């Protein structure tokens, strides 16, 4: 049994708006990433994916606040630690983060090597510049990036190269867990493939032990990750292995997401894309029952009555729906039959 690199138990974080309202963007989320595994998080925009990524790092700054729950990285509990300590000791060294707009993460007035010096010296004051440049060069060579990049300004690099540089910088201090928040959403397909290849390489060479990958592109998620978690309105609605989630989703929301997959493969033109109508609920005052009930095709009376627990069905699979597994499958089979005619 491999040991868990990152374990999160019942994590809840909230945003406090300037009117003093609480918005619970991450609501009792539990997850576990084992060594050598990649966890994917799927969901539409505004459902709390990025907030979860920020919350996992244990580094909170307003308007994001920590409420309850535990974050355990490789045996150490980091929840409730002082933000400054977290920044110096944990970020980069234990857990690293690639932001969504990594393109803008680089300082436009500095060469890449100076940026790297800043990063390393923030964590370790007594490294010489020569050591840093050697370390950076070796890392860049391992990752297949040209070493000339170090002496360039960000404007001289292409989008894909910038993104890969940011990834290389984020693993400089050999973190155990890497959180990639839509690392390829602004890139074209070829650069995207290069980025994904590099992330794979990081896992294979052992520079990082495990990874959390966040995106709304399901085909990508399916190819990169081992397990997938589907989020909706701050809650986990379904989790399971990548294959199970993509080919055999149980929760109606996950089912809807899978209906929006577009891949250039035979048979795509015959299916009608299934869009989910409506928008996610406002989390300022979330519905008391199932949060998806308003948009759900199969919603019943009792759905909106009380909150629904995550139902564990064994084999690492769980889903948050009132309808039993067997009945859901029957409903989907009927639906598929109706659509086929």
């Amino acid at each position, binding site marked *: 049994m491999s040991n868990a690199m990152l374990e999160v138990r019942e994590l809840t974080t909230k945003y406090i708006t300037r009117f003093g309202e609480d918005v619970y963007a991450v609501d009792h989320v539990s997850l576990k990433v084992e060594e050598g595994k990649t966890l994917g998080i799927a969901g*539409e925009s505004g459902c709390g994916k990025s907030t979860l990524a920020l919350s996992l790092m244990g580094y909170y700054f307003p308007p994001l606040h920590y409420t309850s729950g535990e974050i355990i990285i490789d045996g150490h509990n980091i929840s409730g630690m002082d933000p400054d300590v977290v920044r110096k000791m944990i970020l980069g060294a234990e857990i690293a983060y690639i932001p969504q707009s990594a393109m803008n993460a680089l300082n436009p007035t500095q060469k890449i090597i100076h940026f790297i010096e800043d990063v390393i010296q923030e964590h370790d004051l007594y490294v010489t510049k020569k050591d840093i440049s050697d370390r950076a060069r070796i890392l860049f060579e391992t990752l297949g990036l040209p070493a000339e990049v170090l002496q360039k300004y960000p404007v001289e690099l292409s989008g894909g190269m910038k993104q890969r540089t940011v990834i290389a910088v984020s693993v400089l201090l050999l973190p155990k867990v890497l959180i990639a928040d839509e690392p390829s959403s602004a890139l074209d397909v*070829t650069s995207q493939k290069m980025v*994904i290849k590099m992330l794979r390489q990081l896992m294979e060479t052992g520079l990082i032990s495990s990874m959390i990958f966040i995106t709304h592109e399901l085909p990508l998620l399916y190819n990169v990750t081992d397990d997938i978690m589907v989020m909706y309105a701050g809650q986990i609605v379904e989790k399971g292995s990548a294959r199970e989630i993509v080919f055999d989703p149980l929760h109606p929301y996950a089912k809807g997401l899978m209906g929006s997959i577009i891949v*250039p*493969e035979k048979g795509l033109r015959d299916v009608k894309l299934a869009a989910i109508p409506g928008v996610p609920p406002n989390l300022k005052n979330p519905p008391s029952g199932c949060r998806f009930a308003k948009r759900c095709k199969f919603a019943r009376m009792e759905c909106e009555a009380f909150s629904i627990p995550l139902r564990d069905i064994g084999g690492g699979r769980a889903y948050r729906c009132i309808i039993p597994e067997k009945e859901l499958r029957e409903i989907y089979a009927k639906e598929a039959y109706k659509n086929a005619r």
Partner: protein
Amino acid sequence: MPVEKKLYLSTSGLTKVFGFGRNKTLAVDHVDLNLYEGEVVSIVGESGSGKTTLAKMLLGLISTTEGDIYFQGKKRDISTHRKKKEYWKNIQAIFQDPFSSYNIFNKIDTVLLDCIAMRGGRRLPYAKKVELMTEACSFVNLKFEELTNKYPFELSGGQMQRLMIARIFLLKPKILLADEPTSMIDACSRATILDELMQLRNENGMTIIFITHDIGLAYYVSDKVYIMEHGKFVESGSADEVILSPREPYTQRLINDVPKIYEEWDLSTV
């Protein structure tokens, strides 16, 4: 026997050169494009292949360096502002970034009222205008009562893009040029937007030029696909032909780079 279709828009040897001398860049290189009535045509290429430049030339937003554009059999004439406006009644566009497609000082009512005025409804009674606007909004599943008196920035990206389609619904142009309409939107709202575009096509017989870098999307929506590389069309044909059995190495590479779910995704080829 196939029905003879009307040629709507065609170009011959369309070229655009940016800069001169040593800095000369050939953005679009002798492109021949034929667009028939009611067709959905996709132009697919990587970033920097000249897709958007081509779109801007077709719209008349930038001048052409060489070559001609024919609209409904006649050579396009947009030499004066009046003629340009007349041309824009026939061809309209949806752009990539919904956040920068609107005038930030105008309310949503103004955006839609402008469209009505452009179709010659300037003198209609206000109640009639509201009726038209409500119809357009309900077409894209928005509620006009919620939008009225709001500014574009108060909407989400998906809503803005759908409002863009509502504009097109009011304007009813002959040709719609959709320049990466779904690239800033998440996969879930993407299906909605595509559905609405297809509905527009089916109801009004609109011709759509779909510009995208997502080859899967192009395959889903279009009848005909053009693959563009460095300003040239390298391959063209029906969607099934081009995407399921590509001939050119460039097309093959593009298709290989897209993550797939039924086939193995080969990472070793980059």
